[in-house]
C-alpha cells in the first residue's frame, strides 16, 4: 500500500483520513473481485420464465414480486406475455371469476394482497376482463417483446395499472396508445407498434408463447417456470414464492414492500 496504518503518516495526518485512504485501496481490490464473481454468477443464474396475461390480477402480483426479487435472487427473469384465453380453451379450464363465490372472494383477497404487497391491484368487473378485443393488449406486448423488449416491463405495468387498478380499457388502439406513452415508449415508435398488432408474425409469436406454456403443463395464469439443474419446474399462481425460493436454493424474505414501485 505504500504506508503503514500506524506509521508517521497517520500520526501527522490524523487517523481517519489515513484509514479512509487505506480502505479505498481495499475497496478497489474488493470491487475488482466482486465484478469477476458477478460475471461467474451471471453465467450460473437460473432462468425463471413468467408467463402472464394482463387480464389476470394474480399475474400482476407475481410480476411485481419477481421484479423485486430479480436483484435478490440469482435469477434471470424472462417475461413471457401469453394469451390466457388460449390456455383456457386448450385445457377446459375456466376463469375463476365466472363463479360468483370465487369472484367475491377474489375482490377481498386482492384488497388484502394489495396492502400486503403494496401493489394497487383492484379486481374490476368481469365484463372488463372478458372483452374479446383485450387480445390487442397481448399482441401489443408481443410486438414490443419482438421489436423493443426494453419497454416490455414498463408497458406491462402500465397496462395493469389501467385495467387492474383504474378499471380502464385496454382493448382499443387509443387506449393502447395512451398506455404506450405512459410507459415511456417514444411517440415516434408507437404507431408502428400499434400496426404490428395485426401482423402475422406477432399473432404467431403470441400463439407460440402460449403453446410453450401449455407444453409446460399450464392451465392458468400466472405460470412460472423455474429451470433448476436442467429441469423445468412449473408453478402456478402467485402464492408459491417460498416454495420457489426453496427450489432455487434462495431465501424468501416476504413481500419487500420497500421495493414497491407505487
Amino acid at each position, binding site marked *: 500500500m505504500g504506508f503503514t496504518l500506524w506509521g508517521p503518516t497517520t500520526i501527522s495526518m490524523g487517523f481517519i483520513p489515513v484509514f479512509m485512504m487505506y480502505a479505498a485501496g481495499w475497496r478497489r481490490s474488493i470491487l475488482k473481485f466482486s465484478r469477476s464473481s458477478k460475471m461467474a454468477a451471471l453465467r450460473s443464474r437460473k432462468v425463471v420464465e413468467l408467463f402472464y396475461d394482463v387480464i389476470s390480477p394474480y399475474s400482476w402480483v407475481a410480476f411485481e414480486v419477481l421484479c423485486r426479487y430479480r436483484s435478490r435472487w440469482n435469477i434471470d427473469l424472462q417475461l413471457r406475455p401469453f394469451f390466457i384465453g388460449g390456455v383456457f380453451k386448450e385445457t377446459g*379450464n375456466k376463469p375463476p371469476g365466472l363463479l360468483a363465490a370465487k369472484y367475491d*372472494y377474489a375482490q377481498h*383477497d386482492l384488497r388484502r394482497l394489495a396492502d400486503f404487497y403494496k401493489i394497487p391491484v383492484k379486481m374490476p368487473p368481469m365484463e372488463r376482463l372478458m372483452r374479446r378485443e383485450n387480445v390487442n393488449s397481448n399482441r401489443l406486448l408481443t410486438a414490443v417483446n419482438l421489436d423493443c423488449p426494453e419497454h416490455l416491463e414498463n408497458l406491462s405495468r402500465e397496462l395493469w395499472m389501467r385495467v387492474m387498478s383504474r378499471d380502464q380499457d385496454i382493448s382499443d388502439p387509443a387506449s393502447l396508445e395512451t398506455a404506450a406513452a405512459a410507459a415511456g415508449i417514444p411517440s415516434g415508435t408507437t404507431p408502428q407498434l400499434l400496426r404490428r398488432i395485426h401482423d402475422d408474425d406477432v399473432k404467431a409469436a403470441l400463439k407460440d408463447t402460449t403453446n410453450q406454456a401449455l407444453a409446460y403443463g399450464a*392451465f392458468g395464469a400466472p405460470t412460472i417456470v423455474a429451470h433448476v439443474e436442467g429441469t423445468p419446474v412449473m408453478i402456478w*399462481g402467485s402464492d*408459491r414464492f417460498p416454495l420457489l425460493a426453496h*427450489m432455487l436454493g434462495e431465501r424468501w424474505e*416476504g413481500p419487500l414492500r420497500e421495493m414497491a414501485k407505487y
Partner: protein
Amino acid sequence: MAAPARKSVEFFYDVLSPYTWLAFEVMCRYQQKWNIDLKLRPFFLSGIMQGADNRPPGMVPAKATYMGQDLKRLTDMYQVPFNMPSNPAEVMFIKGSINAGRFLTAVDMNCDQYLEELTRQLFLRIYYRDEDITEPASLMAAAAKAGIPEDLTKQLLSTLKDQAVKDRLRQTTQAALDHGAFGSPTIVAHIDGKAQMFFGSDRLELMAHMLGEKWYGPLPELAKAKM
C-alpha cells in the same frame, strides 16, 4: 395487566381435501406460537361445493396433474407425510366423506379434546396409507390411534345417523357458506371485530400479517404427524 385476548381462528375443513391437510398441520403448529384460539370446525365439502355451485379442481386434467406435483413438493417442504391415493377419483368423487364428517362432528360435540388427533389419523389413512375412511371399522381404527376409548368410540359411531349430528354438520357447513366458502380449507380469523375469510393453504403468511403475528414458515421442526 391482563394478557391480550386470544384471537379466534375458525378452521372449517373436510378430510377429503389434500391441501387441507397441509393447512391443518401448519395451523396446529402455530397454535403454540400465536396468541390464537384455534377452533376446528369439521364440515361437509360436498355440501360446500353444492352451496357455492363449485366443482372440484381435479376435474380439469392439467390441473389434476399439477396438483399431484404441487402436493408432493409442498408436503416434502412442510414435512407432512403424504401419498396420493392409487385411485384419487374414486376416493374423492365416489366414496366421499359423509361418515367421516359425521364422526368428526360427533367427537366435536362430545369429546372435542380428541378432535385434533382424530383429524390427523383420518388424514394419515386417506392421504398417506391409502386406506378407507368411510366404513365403521375404518373410523374405529382411526379413533383407536387417536386415543379415544373403545366404548366411547362405539357409542359415538352409533349416533352418526342421529338428527342432532346431521344438523350440527349441516349447520357448520352453512356457517362456512355464510362466510363465502367455496372449498376446503376455509379459515375465518376474527380480527378487530371483523371476520376475515381465507381460502386454501397458501394465505397463512398474509393471515399472520393481519393477526399481527410473526410468520416463521411452515415450521417443519414442529411436525406432529408421524409416519
